[in-house]
């Protein structure tokens, strides 16, 4: 029997009284009644001693209360809402659709505040993927620049007053036979379209015009001519083995980049596969897509048409079809190779074209018809509803307005004053409209001209639906009460047109419970259908059958029109940045500070030109030049951008906003005026311009990366497919260290631990991440997702310039250099000469991307040097930071070979110097309450989303099981559209992480240091044509 110790004589004796009392919570008698009961209150029971005690306590309490302490108001719920439990997040399925991007999303709310947007995995379109812009859009809700309520001519007004005013005016106009126009950006919502039709019926003379800053009407026109359908098809790149892209940035900007990136990556991943797609890119600017291509050719915008025609001719000759007019381009070799590959892979090959030019799209349609791309890859029968703008209709509206034929203009989301090529013409035209109403949710250049401002809700406060692709529906629901006195545009229309609907929510619900409910047969009650659709956020009617297509276009006239393009001057090509896009979210500081994936510059646009062009013009980075084309002159700074075509400059749109809010204003310049309207479409280019250097002081361009090449180091390991097939370890040889016992693996040379004793035990979990460099496209979604999740501050341009960005994850971008060891030997260059040459990127380099965050080293150099043990290792393999222990010596950051540690140089919250979201109560609502806002003077870095790990572990514990693989996910891995980042547990042999580490492409960054990171990478493999490969 076990020995027993007794605590007292009572226990030893174990008498009855003791046994009775033992079961009480408090063993001894508590004098509750004596102190707090009736007796205590009566005066005669208060002794002198008690009086002194109370006095003493009272004095102490009074003096303590007199000490000034900051008052923080936290108001508890008087009545707890049913669905809100403090500390527990709620997720709502919804839809992001701002006229430019679409994604089905899940919104995470905490205590009624939306704080994070994740992808909705049930969507067949976006499949759980999001982009940086969608991730960042949650901050736009808490933007102080939004309209706070309705106003007339700048004077705050009441909704009732405004409604009666507008209703009367619209009725008057309509009755008098006047013209009303509703000008919106692309509306994916079928219900809103239906509602606008009802408005048009109720108010005769009303028409709906769609305006997109980046339009696809050239493609719609071409498809009308070629196939009789003015539609934009959907693309399934996962079926494409051979992709050739002409100026098409389908991974970052074109049509539906999130969807395309995921499809594209499917054929780029090599796990358990022996083949991957090949990707040719012909482009003028170095785009994200071009950076990922296997073969990239620089083509001036003025040559692009000829390239398309030449490609057609080469494929036509192989197909035995009549060629179009003969054309010779300088890119014959590249085009022949592409044509050959495309033709050999016909049925699984596609050509994509990003030009908004009907002729080019027609030629590309002809090529795709020859290649059989319409059988598998391109689907015209299930068209996309994105980019509904027809440029001709916009042009017509402009001339109608200018002619004084339009009596009322209702604007929603469209901003032609900013983004139409001819700004002054738009301004003059709108001034001629007697009644201008804006229902946009935030000020912009066009809304600024409106007499009536009737702001709509933010999308997170609104009911809506969307049909991005025919037959694919999704719902949007409000996740927070409107912050300001705003009203949804649709509700305003119902009021103004005097429609009989109660409100848009009822209208929407009724439509879904009748129309959409009728499209399915699984759910048998309309209410149940609505509930499930709302819960899932998406609803599909299934795919439509494809019909055989017949190309009816006139290839010869299209080809001769394209061949006629000539340019002698400087060509200008406009492009969208991954963060800023078309500029509609320009006031979002997260997006402004997201480094451009290619140039790594934040907070600006610039005139990008190739190094050779800058040299010949005598320009260096930051020089201010005047760029003139088609009568437009703009001043801007020069950025040296390897990979831009000769005699061509590239400029990002979306900058130079003048009425968008404090974060956006004063940044860069507006490049839209360089767009040109001709042949019924807006072309994002100007040909034949000129550049002159000004005497202005150099302009500061702030970049997060100022060194561009890998200096011959094995940082991003890379190989080509043919080499990889021969040897899976190609490009990834074992890292060996010379020792006195001969060569040894770097991991075997260790000062402290023997191979038998690998260091710390990780008995329970051992978290880690894997990053596949083959599927990372460099889009930057993870950077923003991490910033949102972990309350990473925005630091502004000035701080970026002195290398103080705070991002916990960065995507390093390296260009290849013309110099390598063999070449140095040939040229007889010494080591120093070689290294100096290696610093210079090629004029047209290959590009690699590498996401780098804290590598969570298991022999961490940072942990040993901290004097106060503020950074330590967890038993689950995490490298942890105790912010409130940190004294700020920065030794850990110095000793980090990956340079991933970030120091709080300033107080980034509540500081007017950093007037971004953390400086206002409104902006601070976006902060994640699970992650502390760091104070000044402490170090921070990636935690591998430890708060998510803790949450997942607790949930699993409550359910009495271990967390399954994929149940816990980091923000970066979750947001990655291509699933390049995988999070998991090494101790779970079934986890993807454990499986992927067996792949022979696996390597640790800087393995020779043997710091034993928990993060590993997979070698990048390109699929270049073998003979030209390994160059």
């Amino acid at each position, binding site marked *: 029997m076990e020995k027993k110790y007794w605590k007292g004589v009572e226990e030893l004796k174990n008498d009855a009284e003791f046994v009775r009392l033992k079961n009480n919570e408090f063993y001894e008698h508590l004098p509750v009644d004596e102190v707090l009961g009736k007796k205590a209150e009566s005066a005669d029971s208060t002794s002198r001693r008690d009086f002194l005690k109370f006095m003493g306590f009272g004095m102490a309490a009074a003096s303590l209360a007199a000490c000034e302490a900051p008052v923080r108001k936290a108001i508890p719920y008087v009545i707890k809402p049913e669905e809100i439990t403090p500390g527990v997040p709620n997720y709502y399925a919804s839809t992001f659709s701002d006229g430019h991007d679409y994604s089905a999303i899940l919104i995470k709310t905490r205590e009624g505040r939306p704080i994070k947007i994740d992808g909705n995995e049930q969507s067949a379109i976006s499949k759980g993927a999001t982009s940086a812009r969608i991730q960042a859009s949650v901050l736009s809700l808490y933007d102080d620049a939004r309209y706070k309520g309705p106003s007339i001519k700048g004077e705050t007004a009441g909704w009732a007053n405004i409604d009666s005013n507008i209703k009367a005016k619209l009725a008057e106009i309509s009755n008098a036979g006047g013209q009303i126009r509703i000008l919106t950006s692309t509306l994916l919502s079928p219900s809103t379209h239906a509602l606008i039709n009802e408005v048009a019926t109720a108010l005769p003379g009303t028409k709906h015009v769609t305006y997109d800053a980046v339009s696809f009407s050239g493609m719609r026109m071409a498809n009308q001519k070629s196939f009789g359908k003015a539609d934009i098809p959907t693309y399934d790149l996962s079926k494409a083995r051979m992709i050739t892209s002409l100026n098409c940035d389908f991974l970052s900007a074109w049509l539906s980049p999130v969807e395309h990136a995921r499809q594209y990556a499917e054929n780029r991943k090599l796990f358990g596969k022996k083949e991957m797609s090949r990707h040719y890119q012909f482009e003028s600017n170095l785009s994200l897509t071009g950076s990922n291509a296997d073969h990239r050719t620089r083509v001036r915008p003025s040559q692009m048409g000829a390239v398309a025609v030449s490609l057609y001719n080469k494929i036509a000759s192989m197909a035995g079809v009549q060629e179009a007019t003969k054309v010779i381009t300088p890119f014959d070799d590249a085009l022949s190779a592409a044509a050959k590959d495309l033709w050999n892979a016909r049925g699984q090959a596609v050509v994509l074209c990003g030009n908004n030019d009907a002729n080019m799209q027609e030629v590309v349609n002809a090529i795709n018809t020859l290649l059989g791309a319409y059988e598998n890859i391109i689907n015209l029968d299930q068209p996309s509803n994105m980019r509904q703008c027809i440029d001709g209709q916009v042009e017509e509206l402009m001339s109608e307005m200018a002619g004084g034929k339009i009596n009322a203009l209702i604007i929603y989301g469209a901003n032609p004053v900013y983004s139409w090529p001819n700004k002054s013409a738009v301004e003059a035209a709108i001034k001629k409209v007697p009644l201008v109403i804006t229902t946009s949710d935030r000020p912009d250049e066009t809304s600024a001209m409106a007499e009536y401002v009737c702001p709509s809700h933010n999308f997170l406060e609104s009911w809506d639906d969307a049909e991005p692709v025919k037959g694919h529906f999704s719902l949007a629901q409000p996740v927070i009460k409107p912050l300001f006195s705003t009203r949804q545009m649709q509700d305003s229309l119902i009021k103004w047109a005097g429609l009989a609907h109660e409100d848009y929510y009822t209208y929407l619900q009724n439509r879904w419970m009748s129309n959409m409910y009728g499209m399915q047969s699984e759910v048998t009650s309309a209410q149940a259908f609505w509930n499930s659709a709302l819960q899932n956020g998406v609803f599909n009617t299934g795919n439509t059958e494809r019909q055989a297509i017949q190309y009816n276009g006139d290839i010869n006239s299209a080809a001769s029109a394209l061949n006629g393009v000539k340019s002698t001057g400087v060509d200008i090509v406009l492009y969208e940045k991954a963060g800023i896009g078309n500029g509609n979210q320009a006031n979002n500081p997260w997006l402004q500070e997201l480094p451009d994936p290619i140039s790594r510059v934040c907070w600006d646009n610039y005139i990008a030109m190739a190094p050779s062009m800058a040299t010949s013009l005598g320009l260096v980075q930051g020089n201010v030049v005047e760029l003139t084309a088609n009568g437009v002159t703009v001043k801007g700074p020069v950025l040296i951008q390897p990979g831009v075509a000769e005699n061509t400059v590239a400029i990002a749109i979306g900058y130079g906003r003048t009425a968008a809010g404090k974060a956006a204003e004063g940044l860069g310049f507006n490049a839209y005026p360089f767009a040109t309207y001709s042949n019924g479409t807006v072309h994002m280019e100007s040909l034949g311009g000129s550049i002159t250097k000004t005497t202005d002081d150099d302009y500061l361009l702030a970049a997060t990366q*100022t060194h561009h090449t890998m200096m011959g180091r094995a940082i991003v390991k890379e190989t080509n497919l043919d080499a990889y097939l021969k040897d899976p370890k190609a490009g990834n040889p074992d890292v060996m260290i010379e020792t006195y016992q001969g060569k040894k693996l770097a991991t075997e040379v260790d000062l402290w631990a023997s191979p038998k004793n690998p260091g710390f035990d990780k008995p329970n979990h051992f978290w880690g991440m894997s990053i596949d460099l083959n599927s990372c496209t460099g889009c930057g979604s993870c950077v923003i997702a991490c910033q949102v999740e972990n309350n990473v501050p925005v630091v502004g341009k000035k*701080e970026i310039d002195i290398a103080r960005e705070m991002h916990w994850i960065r995507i390093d971008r390296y260009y290849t250099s013309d110099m390598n060891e063999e070449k140095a030997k040939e040229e007889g260059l010494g080591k120093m000469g070689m*290294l100096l040459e290696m610093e210079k990127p090629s004029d047209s380099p290959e590009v690699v991307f590498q996401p780098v965050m804290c590598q969570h080293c298991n022999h961490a150099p940072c942990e040993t040097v901290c004097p106060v*043990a503020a950074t330590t290792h967890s038993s689950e393999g995490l490298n942890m930071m105790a912010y409130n*222990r940190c004294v700020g010596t*920065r030794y850990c950051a110095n*000793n980090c070979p990956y*340079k991933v540690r970030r120091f709080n140089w300033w107080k980034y919250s509540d500081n007017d110097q950093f007037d971004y979201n953390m400086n206002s109560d409104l902006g601070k609502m976006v902060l994640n309450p699970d992650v502390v806002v760091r104070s*000044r003077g402490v170090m921070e870095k990636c935690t591998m989303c430890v708060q998510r790990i803790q949450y997942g572990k607790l949930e699993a514990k409550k359910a009495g099981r271990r967390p399954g693989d994929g149940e816990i996910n980091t923000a970066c891995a979750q947001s990655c559209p291509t699933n390049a980042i995988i999070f998991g547990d090494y101790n779970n042999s079934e986890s993807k992480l454990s499986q992927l580490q067996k792949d022979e492409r696996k390597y640790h960054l800087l393995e020779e240091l043997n710091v034993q990171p928990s993060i590993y990478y997979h070698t990048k493999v390109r699929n270049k044509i073998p003979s030209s490969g390994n160059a």
Partner: protein
Amino acid sequence: MHYESELREPLILGDKTYHQITEDICRPIEGKANKWWWIAFTIASAALLWWIISVSYTVGTGLGVWGLNKTVGWAWDITNFVWWVGIGHAGTLISAILLLFRQKWRLSINRSAEAMTIFAVICAASFIVSHMGRPWVAYWPLPLPNQFGSLWVNFNSPLVWDVFAISTYFSVSLVFWYSGLIPDFAAVRDRAKTKASKFWYTILSFGWTGTAKNWQRFEELSLVLAGLSTPLVLSVHSVVSMDFATSVIPGWHTTIFPPYFVAGAIFSGFAMVQTLLIITRKVLNMEDYITIYHIDMMNRIILLTGSIVGVAYLTEFFIAWYSGVEYEQYAFINRATGPYWWAYWSMMTCNVITPQLFWSSKLRTSVFATFIISIFVNIGMWFERFVIIVTSLHRDYVPSSWAMYHPTWVEVGIFIGSLGLFFVPFLLFTRFFPVIAMSELKTIVKSSSSQAKKKGADNHGH
């Protein structure tokens, strides 16, 4: 009594008597300060004020006011720290090692050199505190019992070793310096004419009466402290060098650092002693005590340690090449040819080339040349630390994070200001404390002064 050949240079000139020595050395304390002292004190006070402003601004606003960044986490701050600690080393070497080796020429210079050590270490410590992100918790790296929970310092961290090294160094140096001052304070006390100075020097002299027992204890204590200080001369800068040597950064991770840093420290320390004493002997009319011979001796040490440092620089390059490690090789190529080449070549010129001029005995015994070269060495040794810290950090392993560092006026202000933090106490020291250890100096009057030499020569003449 110790006999010394008259062929050896006399250590005290001007046929001084015991009384004259006392008079000469007490004169600055008892008399009024001259114009030059006041000018120097005004400039130093202005610099100190600038230091106070710059440090307050940094602590109040945040380290953002400096030019550091994500890649270069240390620059002027730790450069200055190492520079000041290094300067302190000459004082300890003079008072400890030269004592053990019975080098009598140390007696004229050890007092000022030790004072320099104390003030230099204070300056160095000020940089440890001001470079912290949260200086108000600067005591956390001390292993203090606390109620924060089970918090303890990280004994693996070289910064904790620094804490021990610097605090030990400071306390031993302070005790050594002060114990040496006691007999001199007593002398000043006994000559004091005003009540106030009598009062203060009575307290400072700890009741010294000059008995044989007093002197016996004094000598014993000196010997013990010299024994304690001697390893410190080698250990303190070795520990400081381990801040770098134990790291993984190419250019820091070097086993040569401890001896190389110690040599560099003595090198820079003697240069600073030269700078200070050449001015002091002039301003306080101490040419008879701090003679050309002293200057010559110190220049020889500068020549020796400067050559050791030069060899160390070359060894680093050789090892970088020999190791075959590309990161290491790049770090050194980048030092000499990268964006901070000017810092590297300033260091090479000042530290390796200029001290070689001391092979010429003419320059070695020239006060002017010594002064100029000592300034060069001070500058060169500052650049050495800058080169090690900044050029190694700014381009390490991953080229994407390579960055440039530019100082701000605040960092420059704190450095210039720290010269004020040094010179204000040093100038006060010259006014209130005997700048030469007169009691000890008197022990060599009979053997090494000019009149002793003459007497010896006369005796031999017959």
